[in-house]
């Protein structure tokens, strides 16, 4: 088998799985837990095999990249949407960790979600997510990348709201969705600007050469605009800078989804995007500065917040955010190899920690006992280095999570609502709104419903 076929198979498997099981379910079919688990195991086995083979073939043949051109998805006049995939030295590690970690987490979830009413939903979404993530990492153009990007986003939101019969997960899922949409606006605009200015958004069109060491085909303001927009888009996915508030909210989902999305794969997609368009960012001092600035500020703020988090998952979320900030800085400084290494290591550690987060209690007690009842106190440096008022102030900022939610609520969402409400001046009240007061159905009941109305009392 050629690497091309392997790559196509690799990406297509989870998508096809999702589509088949999903449509079968809609039509009234149902897959047993056992069958679902078996199919998923097999799929990830095959996918792991594909990844290994691709890596081996590339290594043995000395290929730096493998391109697959599947033709145009659709064409209109001169415009065509190219479907082409690529695996190179940047994508390969990402593809590998996606397949491996999603596989491991899938295996974990077979046990974890056993008998949960959402078992099938979870696995459907996991497959869809794997498809989206693989698409992001193997897309040969920004257009295709967006496809995967959005799929990753929506599956992530649906998994945050996995416990749909509760209020909080639903509310937080909605909030995360809103954040994603605003962040994704940036990447969409970037794509259109790329089309506008270079006529293409494929890597081949935007850059010359292969990763690493490819060069930029754009220059000047255009490059800066696109780079800045992409930096913001990446920040959205990786919970950085202006979008740093959502990661903790994403902890509403079941533990394995927290692990695979917010520990491992989804949050690193932003970093991948930056690595991919690295020359573009490097060519613009503004974008470079922005990446470093976002990374540094987020890392510092997040590590401070992390230190005050008294629960397992939020703590991990902010710890992730901290490391992502550092990864952004590394990318900004051009240390791409280090960044990739960092991403891989971070993904592995974090997945493990998320999966083990219910153990935090017994882990702590074991360490406590082993240390003879004296666990090294933490946070003492604050006492020794900072004066009390400064300590309290910093603690306040950290405890308020940097006031992110307060700012967004009060200065973004509330004004939007006000404007929205004000816009109702253009809607004259054609119909007196009886419904809102009496809580009766707004319509006249049908003929049958009329039978239910009470005859007038006879005097």
């Amino acid at each position, binding site marked *: 088998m050629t690497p091309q076929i392997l790559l196509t198979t690799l990406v297509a498997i989870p998508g096809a799985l999702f589509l088949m099981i999903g*449509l079968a379910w809609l039509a009234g079919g149902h897959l047993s837990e056992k069958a679902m688990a078996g199919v998923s195991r097999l799929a990830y086995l095959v996918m792991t095999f594909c990844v290994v083979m691709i890596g081996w073939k590339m290594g043995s043949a000395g290929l730096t990249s493998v391109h697959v051109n599947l033709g145009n*998805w659709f*064409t*209109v*006049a001169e415009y065509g949407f190219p479907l082409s995939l690529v695996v190179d030295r940047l994508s390969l590690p990402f593809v590998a960790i996606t397949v491996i970690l999603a596989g491991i987490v899938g295996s974990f979830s077979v046990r974890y979600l056993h008998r949960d009413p959402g078992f099938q939903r979870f696995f459907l979404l996991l497959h869809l997510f794997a498809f989206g993530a693989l698409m992001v990492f193997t897309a040969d153009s920004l257009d295709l990348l967006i496809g995967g990007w959005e*799929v990753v986003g929506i599956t992530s939101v649906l998994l945050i709201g996995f416990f749909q019969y*509760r209020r909080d997960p639903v509310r937080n899922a*909605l909030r995360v969705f809103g954040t994603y949409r605003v962040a994704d606006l940036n990447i969409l605009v970037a794509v259109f600007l790329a089309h506008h200015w270079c006529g293409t958004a494929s890597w081949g069109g935007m850059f010359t050469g292969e990763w690493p060491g490819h060069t930029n085909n754009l220059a000047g303001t255009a490059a800066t605009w696109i780079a800045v927009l992409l930096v913001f888009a990446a920040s959205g996915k990786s919970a950085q800078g202006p979008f740093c508030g959502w990661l903790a909210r994403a902890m509403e989902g079941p533990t394995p989804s927290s692990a695979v999305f917010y520990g491992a794969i989804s949050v690193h997609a932003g970093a991948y995007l930056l690595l991919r368009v690295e020359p573009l960012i490097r060519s613009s001092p503004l974008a470079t500065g922005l990446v470093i600035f976002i990374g540094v500020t987020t890392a510092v703020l997040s590590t401070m917040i992390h230190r005050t988090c008294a629960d397992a998952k939020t703590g991990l979320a902010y710890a992730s955010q901290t490391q992502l900030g550092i990864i952004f800085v590394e990318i900004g400084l051009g240390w791409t190899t280090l960044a990739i290494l960092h991403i891989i290591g971070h993904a592995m550690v974090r997945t493990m920690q998320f999966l083990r987060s219910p153990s935090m209690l017994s882990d702590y007690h074991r360490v406590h006992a082993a240390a003879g009842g004296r666990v090294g106190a933490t946070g003492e440096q604050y006492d020794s280095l900072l004066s009390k008022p400064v300590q309290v102030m910093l603690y306040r900022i950290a405890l308020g999570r940097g006031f992110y939610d307060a700012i967004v609520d009060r200065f973004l969402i509330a004004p939007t609502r006000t404007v929205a409400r004000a816009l109702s001046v253009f809607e004259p009240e054609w*119909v007196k709104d009886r419904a809102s007061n009496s809580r009766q159905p707004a319509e*006249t009941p049908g003929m049958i419903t009329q039978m239910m109305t009470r005859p007038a009392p006879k005097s």
Partner: protein
Amino acid sequence: MTHLSLPCISFGITALLAGSAVTLVRPAAGRRPAIISALVSLLAFALAALEVHHQHGSRLLDAWVPWLEADALDAVPMVFFASLTLVLITLAPRRDTGGSALSGMLLLAAATEIAYAASNLITLATGWWLTAVPFAFRFFGNPPARRVVSVFLIGGALALTGAIAALHATALTDFSHVSHLAMWLIVLAVALRKGLFPLHSWVVTSFEHGPLLPTALLFNGHLGALLIARSEAVTLPHFAHQVLDMLSIAALITALIASLRSFAEKKPRRLLAFVCISQASFILAGLATANAEGITGALVHWLVVTAASSGLIAIVRILEVRVMDVTNPESDLGLAVKAPRLATFFLICGLALIGLPGTLGYCAEDLLFHGALASHPFLGVALLVATAFNAINLIRLYSLLFLGVLPKHVIDIPDALPRERWPLTACVVFLVLGGILPGRVIPWRDAAAHEIETAIGLKKHGGHH
């Protein structure tokens, strides 16, 4: 002028009218005659569309009635509208099939099809007038919004008639030497009909207080867009371009305002109305881009909006009949626990409407934006903002209806019944498979887009001379 080999169009329209008459006279006969007539008309229009397709999108007159025709632009929407009628009639809850309601829906369908198939402006205007009939003559009972809807529909039709009169006064039936008055009247007709900002409120009222399923039919006729597409396809006067530009800006503003406005809404019907209005405005905006991608995008988006919004509206209606509180829920209703399939249908339709990758909506919007980029870059960006807002509001609506704590008084509502499941599956399959293999769907609209584009291109070309 070539003719269709069979009188498909007149046959299809007659079937609808006959169905309407039968259900009006014998309401006791129930849904069956209505379904049969919709099915027959669907087959007839499908035949016509196939023939047009085989003739590479050329104009084919009906064999019997020469003022009806099928061409690249209207053949596919005709089939779509017929299937939409069939879908809505099939899944309509019994509450919406009592009395003369079915008859009204069939009449509405017939009127819309007449407007689609019109080979001249007078027939087109007839279609417009006819759409107002079921509302004006209380086919759907007397819902609170009846009067408003009738007034706006009649207003639109009047404006169109006025335009035609103006054209006739100058004794010309094409647009080449049209008077300013006629042009402006056409714009007015479109704005009234489509509910462009600031004339959008009647559509919202109709969604909220009107009969919901007929409103879906009315809304998805997209007769305003049709009128613009028709007028683009013929040669236009010099100033028409500016007028069209203005119309596209109005559409854009409508899209933006409606998407923003829905943030303040909590009632499902109103929320849905704003999302639909906003997304439907893209069609008009796309038609105004005047290039292949944009126009094709708009025409595909037309189909997407039709399928997706009908699905959404139908599901809201289906839920309303099951649980009273859907009309004005106090808090999230959490119905997904009871009706997971309806929830999934809703989510897929909604995501297709706002253009999630993997659905046809994505391809349509991709084309739209590319088109917009080529001609009006800022229009593209604004549309992006509107979709982002719409997406958020759509998920809000989804949460409101399907997520959260199930109230204790909601007991044992059934999930989608077979009668409801199959039409909805059809919608979803079209949206999803179309999104995965857009190469099979988009070419349906190639010929139409090409025709419109050549018309505009020729004009531009001529203008340079």
